[in-house]
């Protein structure tokens, strides 16, 4: 249940190719995150799997069956939309019951499943309200409730948290992860937020301009990004890229080093620079350092409080083991 395979799937809108042919496999029970910048085709890819868009070419298999021409209602998948897409004229109970009503389940079973879902999602006391009377987080839980009662073979999430405020987003992220732990159902999750991708995924698919840049576990992508794009996209704050003489020392066109792999010091180090902006978070301190050798400021992370401020001279020592090397095509060397 929930094994999805894309074979040479492609999508064009008229003359414009949004997704050139791609292959991808999602194992049963996996939490797969599609991540990429806006307009990279991740939502389109999800909608192709859902059946809300027709593929231009290729085959989609769900649990071994060719589902390419199967209408969305018959694919056995459930989807949670960014805008929640609740039925505004129905109560929460009716919203959650709707897929069961469509499946013509008997009344007793409908009631049982709705109450179970409501209990899991802390919605029991809101069952008789309408979506308009709920907060954003509650609405999103109703949308998730509507998805889980169907007991689908896979869940599709289309940027479900991007309409929520930051605090709520962290909470819902944990709830969705817990839900996955409990249900063990395949989940495909689309986001542009790499933090969501890193924290939730078993497998991350990084997309750019409709192409898959890399597929792997969060730590694989963090440790061995296949190219500059993935290196820059995964990890927060972003990886620093240096070109020119520093890169040539390492036989590369570009070298990349993450902020957490550079040790700052006020007295000695490999590189010398001047502190531009210092962000003191208490748990961490981030320095944006201007160096003569590079145009872009280099971001450095230091644990705890470090007493250095704007204008101070700073020495940086990169961890040589953690330097990523890229060739002139932006591909990883070694």
């Amino acid at each position, binding site marked *: 249940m929930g094994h999805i395979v894309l074979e040479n799937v492609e999508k064009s809108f008229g003359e414009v190719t949004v997704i050139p042919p791609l292959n991808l496999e999602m194992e049963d029970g996996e939490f797969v995150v599609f991540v990429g910048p806006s307009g990279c085709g991740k939502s389109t890819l999800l909608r192709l799997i859902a059946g809300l868009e027709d593929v231009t070419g290729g085959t989609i298999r769900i649990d071994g069956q060719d589902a390419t021409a199967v209408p969305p209602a018959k694919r056995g998948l459930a989807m949670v939309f960014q805008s929640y897409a*609740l*039925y505004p004229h129905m109560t929460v109970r009716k919203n959650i019951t709707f897929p069961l009503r*469509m499946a013509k389940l008997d009344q007793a079973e409908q009631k049982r499943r709705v109450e179970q879902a409501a209990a899991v999602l802390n919605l029991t006391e809101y069952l008789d309200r309408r979506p308009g009377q709920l907060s954003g987080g509650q609405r999103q839980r109703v949308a998730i409730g509507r998805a889980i009662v169907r007991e689908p073979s896979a869940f599709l999430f289309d940027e479900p948290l991007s309409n929520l405020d930051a605090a709520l987003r962290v909470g819902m992220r944990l709830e969705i992860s817990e839900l996955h732990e409990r249900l063990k159902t395949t989940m495909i999750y689309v986001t542009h937020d790499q933090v969501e991708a890193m924290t939730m995924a078993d497998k991350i698919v990084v997309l750019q301009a409709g192409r898959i840049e890399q597929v792997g576990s969060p730590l694989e992508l963090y440790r061995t990004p296949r190219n500059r794009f993935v290196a820059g996209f995964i990890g927060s704050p972003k990886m620093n890229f240096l070109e020119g003489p520093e890169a040539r020392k390492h036989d590369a066109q570009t070298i990349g080093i993450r902020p957490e792999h550079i040790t700052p010091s006020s007295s000695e180090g490999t590189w010398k620079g001047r502190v531009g902006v210092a962000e003191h978070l208490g748990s961490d301190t981030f320095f944006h350092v201007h160096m003569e050798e590079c145009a872009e400021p280099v971001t450095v992370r230091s644990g705890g409080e470090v007493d250095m401020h704007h204008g101070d001279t700073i020495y940086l020592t990169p961890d040589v083991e953690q330097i990523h090397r890229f060739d002139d095509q932006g591909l990883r060397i070694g």
Partner: protein
Amino acid sequence: MARAVKNKQKIINTVAAWGIGLLIFFPVLWTILTSFKTEAQAIADPPVFLFFDWTLENYAIVQERSDYMRYLWNSVIIAGVSTLVGIVVAVPAAWSMAFVPSKRTKDVLLWMLSTKMLPAVGVLYPIYLIFIQLGLLDTRTGLVIVMMLINLPIIVWMLYTYFREIPGEILEAARMDGASLRDEILYVLTPMAVPGIASTILLNFILAWNEAFWTLNLTAAKAGPLTAFIASYSSPEGLFYAKLSAASTMAIAPILILGWFSQKQLVRGLTFGAVK
């Protein structure tokens, strides 16, 4: 100071609005007043406004001479059934135009509207012949069909504009939830569009109720609605303004009352829907 100017402006606006409103309403008011006059007072020069001998005589005569209830019933059937059939046909049409538009959707919409640009009399002859051939002349069925067809473009346009306001994701959610196309339209789209559908029904009922060209040309005694009822008092009887006014008042009363009770819905429909 600013407040005073604002208030003054408000008073001017209010007076102007009432003035224009009364000006538009005056013919209707005059008809209603005339219906309570005697024939002599109805044509008096200078005209009498309020100070005349109020009488219900005209209503009694009109009711005696012609069967008001039969005409009323015809009007209700023709306006009601044509509107309902129109809605049933137009909802799926508007759905497809609003949610699965093609390259030609705009053209189809304009083409539909263009049928309203032709003067009705231009097709009177062919339609009259078709009605004779099919035995539809002076039948309610025939009028329901014609009325439904001439109002269909407006119904589709109005519903189309309403449906466009409904987010497509909700319909996609219904599809993901296992709803068939029928379920999607019946349980999700229609309930969400109820305000729009209600004002469309109302407006089209009124249009069909007041339509006079086809009802006068295609009916005689049997299927004639209230428009035919009024017309029967205008030409052959000569100068009987008071009775004609009584007949008119009786004919417009039901729709006036309906309009009064549903004015909120109607205004919303007119401003939010097709005439946006």
